[in-house]
């Protein structure tokens, strides 16, 4: 499957493991439940480890563990559910997470601009057929008034 990462189309090399699936080598992501139950084993995992979060999850409780993850996956159950925009902002601005932050779920072209401004840098589109045309979404606007994950100073400091 192809994904967008840092504004380029690349092949996905991560495996999103179900809670029941046996551990495999390579880059994997796990749910919060699995991480909480098997963190000792998972900490020794060879290969990349990623954590999947939904807007329901207690983000602050994960913070001490962040160094264990080379990717954070934020799940959008519906594109109108905006909680993970705040998660992305907090991960980048407050917790200084520098790894990959990926959007998964109902991820559509028309939300990519705001997602990227919030700090998400990779995207599994709900409909990868349109992946080429989706790339233009990052250029929908050339400026933002606010401080964003990409622009740490508000526009009024640059005017």
């Amino acid at each position: 499957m192809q994904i967008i990462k840092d504004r380029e189309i690349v092949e996905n090399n991560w495996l999103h493991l179900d809670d029941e699936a046996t551990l495999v080598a390579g880059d994997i992501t796990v749910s919060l439940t699995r991480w909480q139950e098997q963190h000792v084993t998972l900490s020794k995992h060879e290969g990349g480890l990623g954590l999947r979060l939904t807007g329901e999850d207690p983000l602050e409780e994960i913070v001490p563990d962040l160094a264990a993850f080379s990717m954070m996956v934020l799940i959008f159950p519906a594109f109108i559910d905006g909680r993970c925009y705040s998660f992305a902002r907090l991960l980048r601005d407050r917790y200084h997470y520098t790894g990959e932050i990926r959007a998964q779920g109902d991820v559509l072209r028309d939300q990519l601009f705001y997602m990227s401004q919030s700090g998400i840098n990779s995207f599994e589109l709900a409909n990868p057929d349109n992946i080429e045309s989706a790339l233009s979404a990052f250029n929908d606007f050339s400026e933002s008034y606010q401080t964003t994950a990409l622009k740490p100073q508000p526009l009024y400091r640059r005017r």
Partner: protein
Amino acid sequence: MYQYDNYDQAMVDQRVAQYRDQTRRFLAGELTEEQFRPLRLMNGLYVQIHAPMYRVAVPYGLMSSKQIRKIADVSRRYDKAYVHFTTRTNFQMNWPKLEDVPDIMAELATVQMHSIQTSGNDIRNTTTDELAGVCANEIEDPRPWCEIIRQWSTFHPEFAYLPRKFKIAVIGTEEDRAATQLHDIGLHLVKNHEGEIGFEVLVGGGLGRTPILGQVIRSFLEKKDLLSYLEAILRVYNRLGRRDNKYKARIKIMVREHGLSHIRELVEAEWVHIRKQLVLDDKEIARVKQYFTEPAYEATAANDVSFAQMQVEDATFARWVKQNVRDHKKLGYKIAFITLKAPLVPPGDVTSDQLDVIADLADEFSMGEIRASHSQNLLLSDVKQGDLYALWLRLQAEGLATANMNTMADMICCPGLDFCGLANATSIPLAKKINERFDDLDYLYDLGDIKIKISGCMNGCAHQSVGHIGILGVDKKGEEWYQFTLGGSSEADASLGERLGRAIPKDEVVDTVVTLLEVFKELRYEDELFLATVRRVGIDPFKERVYADN
């Protein structure tokens, strides 16, 4: 007024291009109705019973004559040559074609107007006092703060998919003409003990199904911290607000369910982290304020004697002055309201031809600016008193001099079942019927200030729960019935109206209003106002008579 620089203009132009492409993809079948819906809503486009309805932002109610002419122009070319002003000082077009909206938007962008976030679950147009900058006793002009909030909230990437819509209002006086206690956030410019000006911050007010008055979450906020504090409130709401039930998704429900003190703790804890990052610097405050400096008022304007003289000579003019003209902070200047409440015209409607005349009058008499008010009227804020008679004659010729400000005829009314997909009942025809029955202006003047607000459904777009008389349309087995409330107010003494009793069938609504006014006339002391009488005697005397008659 604020003027776009290249950054502001680029942002609005790029929005047009983005929405044009979204509309194209929707029409080409590349976006489903479900995917397109939130996108068109955050651009102000609803799909209603008869046609789409397109809502355009009028930031804090302020427009130039050039903008008014453009509104007239697009409403002629793309609609039925009229527009409707709303209680949140936006305007709506009731008959545009979905495929024309990007073109309308592009036209509006040429005069620095937009429809960004006029609907949808995002931060809406920030509203304020219609008399901002021209009324006496103002602590500070709230409009620069509205513009600062407009820029911060426009395309805020984190808050575009909130649990529900989010409305902010700012005022700079003790009187509240912007219904701030009924907003998700209400901001009051206040002075603290040290004499510094900052904000009192209210949170969790709102109308709709569950009307609640806002509560003070912070009694004093320094100006430089405004945006960080707003961001803290919004972040807490975005994470904690309910998303399982859209009727429980507003911040007012979150505050009620978790309690104000808990929400305050969460907001303050969040704020500690971001306070230093998002400081509003003096340079930016000064940059925005320079667009709202006082115009060059003429000191000689106060020397005019014709104004007093014409009121003696022309009783009709005098009546209009008494009803529709307000004092200005500068001696010799007045504020003239153009009520959009002519009998038999839907409240808030104005034709394209009238708009062109209003634009000319603004250029001639009021420094080229026009304002929209919470009461769905327009006003010219800087008229020399010596010009008022000439202005009034011109307004009269256009049917724009209806002298009924704050009378019962100055009703607030939602579009209702005729135009709105959500409504259970009609509202505009009821307003018409009430106006037909009470067509004697002297009788209306005698009754004094009475605010009737009519909403066609529980969503309460006409704010019926804060009407002195509130009328709410409900559906009973396919028939239109109306629930009355009495004693509501949206001003500084805000209160929610009390239910009169069981709903009343449509054909008895006007008679019920007649009965309520009869009881009022019997019980009022001298010139006591309706709201004061209701507060003094309670609703029982009204209730007894209305239901006895039935």
